[in-house]
């Protein structure tokens, strides 16, 4: 078997050295009734590399890949071009097959990369510090709510109706068990967000206000007033960014007063991957650093005075604090954080600004063309690379019918908010740099045909 180096003579020699007759002697502590006498029945036996590859090729062909078709889906996961060098670097064995950097003398590569990543994320979000990443945006969002609870010692969180519904679901799942009260609402198909509701809901029992920026419908709104209101009441403002490329074009949440900024980093370097693995971004004001969840990398010196990096402030974490830890998280999303960081380094300030302008311009053009279709209206006043259309009929079957025409034309609000009638005509459309003029044309034609 190609992955197992021991030979039969090796095994015999090792058993003899141990003083065991057969391998079964090493499993004596397993009660005999639980020991299986041979390979589990009903499962296939080992297969060659070629056979396995063939199996996967066949399954892969049954999916419509984003790069093979006009593609306009977003709603928390975005298709961007990932430079070839990103994948080359993350496949280097020294990154791919390393472990968490618990022995810093032989893990400076991962540690320095994480320090650079933390700095990039903090700067992008306009915050003082960032951690070494979380599982994804949705879990980072819940962790931020929990952190606000620890800081304010309050349990009421006010969630914007523009927060991704899956993120709301994750928070609801957790809140059921932690006793937190979540003030939530459904969005409306309107250019106006529910910031008035949020401003009214914040009081001195509120731990935090959670706002997505740009929000699930693509709308962009100034967060300053909300930040001020939250701070007046001793609450924190948490901003959630699901499309970090947007911050190449618009103000960062930190600039507008957000105390904690979390996000989904998938857009840069990671790819769509059918939903995972992704990379949760988590940044905050420096004074809250000891309440942060997750791993942190910090700078120090070695015994010869050379600069080096280590995992630090570990006493917040589960392996030391156990049931008193800030979170049960035990990992980060290291390799995805590397992909994010390499992509960001390749872009640089200039590249990110340029990428953001290109995304915005193509989205504005696409919105203009799509709204020329009879009965199709643009919901947003403001947007970055994603906007919501109101169709003259239910959007979900329209998306399926466009898929039959080989166009992947957005995410229907019916999929995101099943059973909510007032949203069912909504279609969320994301337009990134991968969309060609021809793609936008095919999308417009398909939508027109399906609606006709």
């Amino acid at each position, binding site marked *: 078997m190609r992955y197992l180096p021991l030979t039969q003579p090796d095994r015999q020699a090792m058993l003899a050295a141990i003083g065991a007759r057969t391998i079964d002697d090493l499993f004596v502590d397993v009660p005999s009734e639980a020991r299986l006498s041979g390979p589990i029945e009903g499962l296939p036996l080992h297969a060659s590399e070629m056979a396995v590859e063939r199996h996967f090729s066949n399954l892969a062909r049954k999916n419509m890949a984003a790069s093979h078709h006009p593609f306009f889906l977003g709603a928390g996961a975005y298709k961007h071009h990932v430079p070839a060098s990103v994948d080359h670097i993350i496949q280097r064995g020294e*990154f791919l097959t*390393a472990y968490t950097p618990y022995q810093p003398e032989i893990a400076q590569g991962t540690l320095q990369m994480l320090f650079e990543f933390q700095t990039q994320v903090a700067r*992008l979000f306009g915050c003082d510090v960032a951690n070494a990443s979380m599982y994804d945006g949705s879990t980072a969002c819940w962790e931020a709510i929990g952190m606000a609870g620890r800081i304010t010692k309050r349990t009421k969180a006010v969630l914007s109706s523009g927060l991704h519904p899956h993120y709301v679901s994750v928070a609801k799942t957790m809140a059921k068990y932690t006793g937190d009260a979540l003030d939530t609402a459904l969005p409306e198909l309107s250019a106006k967000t529910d910031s008035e509701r949020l401003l009214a809901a914040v009081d001195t029992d509120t731990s935090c206000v959670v706002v997505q920026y740009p929000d699930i419908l693509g709308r962009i709104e100034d967060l300053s007033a909300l930040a001020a209101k939250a701070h007046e009441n001793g609450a924190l403002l948490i901003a959630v960014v699901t499309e970090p490329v947007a911050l190449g074009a618009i103000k960062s949440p930190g600039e507008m007063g957000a105390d904690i900024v979390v996000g989904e980093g998938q857009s840069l370097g990671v790819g769509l991957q059918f939903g995972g693995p992704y990379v949760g971004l988590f940044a905050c004001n420096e004074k809250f650093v000891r309440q942060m969840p997750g791993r942190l990398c910090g700078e120090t010196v070695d015994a010869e005075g050379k600069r080096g990096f280590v995992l630090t402030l570990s006493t917040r974490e589960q392996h030391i604090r156990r049931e008193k830890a800030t979170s049960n998280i035990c990992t980060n999303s290291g390799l995805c954080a590397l992909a994010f960081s390499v992509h960001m380094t390749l872009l640089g300030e200039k590249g990110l600004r340029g990428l953001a302008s290109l995304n915005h311009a193509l989205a504005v053009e696409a919105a203009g063309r799509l709204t020329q279709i009879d009965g199709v209206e643009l919901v947003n006043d403001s947007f970055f690379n994603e906007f919501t259309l109101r169709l003259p009929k239910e959007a979900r079957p329209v998306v399926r019918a466009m898929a039959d025409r080989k166009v992947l034309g957005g995410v229907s609000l019916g999929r995101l908010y099943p059973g909510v009638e007032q949203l069912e005509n909504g279609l969320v459309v994301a337009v990134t740099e991968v969309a060609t003029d021809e793609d936008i044309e095919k999308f417009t034609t398909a939508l027109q045909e399906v609606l006709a």
Partner: protein
Amino acid sequence: MTAINQSGWKPEMTALRPAQDETDVAGTYTGNKALMLEEPLIFEIGHDGSTGIDLAEAPQVASRLGGLQRNRDIGLPGLSEPEAVRHYTRLSRQNYAIDLGFFPLGSCTMKHNPRLNEKVARMAGFADVHPMQPVETVQGALAVIHQLAHWLITLTGMKAVAMSPKAGAHGELCGILAIRAALTARGDARSVILCPESAHGTNPATAAFAGYQVENIPATSEGRVDLEALKARLGPDIAGVMITNPNTCGLFERDMRAISDAVHAAGGYVYCDGANFNAIVGRVRPGDLGIDAMHINLHKTFSTPHGGGGPGSGPVVLSEALAPFAPLPFVDKDGEHYRLVEEETVGEHHDKTFGRMVAFHGQMGMFTRALAYIMSHGADGLRQVAEDAVLNANYILRSLQDVLDAPFAHSGPCMHEALFSDDGMAEGFSTLDIAKGLIDEGYHPMTVYFPLVVHGAMLIEPTETESKATLDQFIGALRSVAGRAKAGDQSLKSAPHHAPRRRLDETQAARKPVLVWREPEQAVAAE
């Protein structure tokens, strides 16, 4: 509170050390040592105006940004592609990795990561598919999830599996939430979860995260759960137990069935931490031991790469009692058609779910890799995996127990990892010194100071993908290092001597945390 960075530090700023005599070697101007190359931060070598990506010119449009145009620089230096590739390649060479050598990190299962798995995960049909595409356009992706689920259920002898948890600790949370949902459904508000002291820290942290109080279960002198003490504590307030099996001392919990029966009789549920499943995969089905929920670290047993600390993946297999409470989403099959059970269809098919744990469907990139690994091995190969992993660990245990204290060597064979303590070292020498000595020998050290129940613990997990020759050389190296620690060799106290860095000052890092880079003048101003 923030201290200044050593920003602007360059290797050549460490004083160039001249040779002391004709046998000495002078330092170098660059700080480099041939192939051991120093590398600055991107913030010290990149520029705002540099980029490694060419973009099309954006068409002129009227901005729709709502008046929120960014008017401040972000401060993101860029590098051209050759500079970026060199930067990260140089950094990579400061890392130890499985590809470079033996990595016997106990409890972490650092086995070889087959490259076929990387290839299949990158097929466009899996890597370039959006999670919210119409299900008709992702039938192949759903088939992968369904096939992997089938393997996991069959290998564990359980009823169902929740695929979405993103890591082991996230899987633990899934299992505990399922237990809590099942108890809530029967109107039973139990408040305590029991964990052994030897448990991973994630176990008590997870139980507390889900709102439970945590109490310890005592261990026997053999290093196993004390069944009688556990039984004495069971009662109407105990929601469940979290047991790691094989446990973190490397031993199989012989009484697992009796533990499960006692917990069930008292109305509680049994969570099994599956971190050590590699020892028994294909040979023992946890379902036969009365377990209600167990997470499977795909990045351990099924060899998805650790990636320098994630991403992992932690599907949770569930018993019949807990299956109805599994989280959303869920892949189901109608004839030849795969369905995704999400919020909308939940009323019809899965109405007791405790809800959603993540935004999308879990770690697809890990599912493809794990399934490729599983299919490559097959039922016969996986059984061989467990056998070789256990054989390798016992070989290490018996080859070292005369030079290192093995507190549970008398308890019978170990499973896939061997546990030692620092008993018997010279005054002032500890596990840390042995670990750092192994670095100089070219190995990644074992897990140290875990589990907490053993003084100066050293937990060695060789895995099945190591040859006898590798093990023999490691055994020789560890015998040598242990001998130096017993003899009080002072040079071991300052090891490693040959790594890219000497021991790092973790006290300074924690007292004055420097978590981001700042420009030197800015850093000084912040002081």
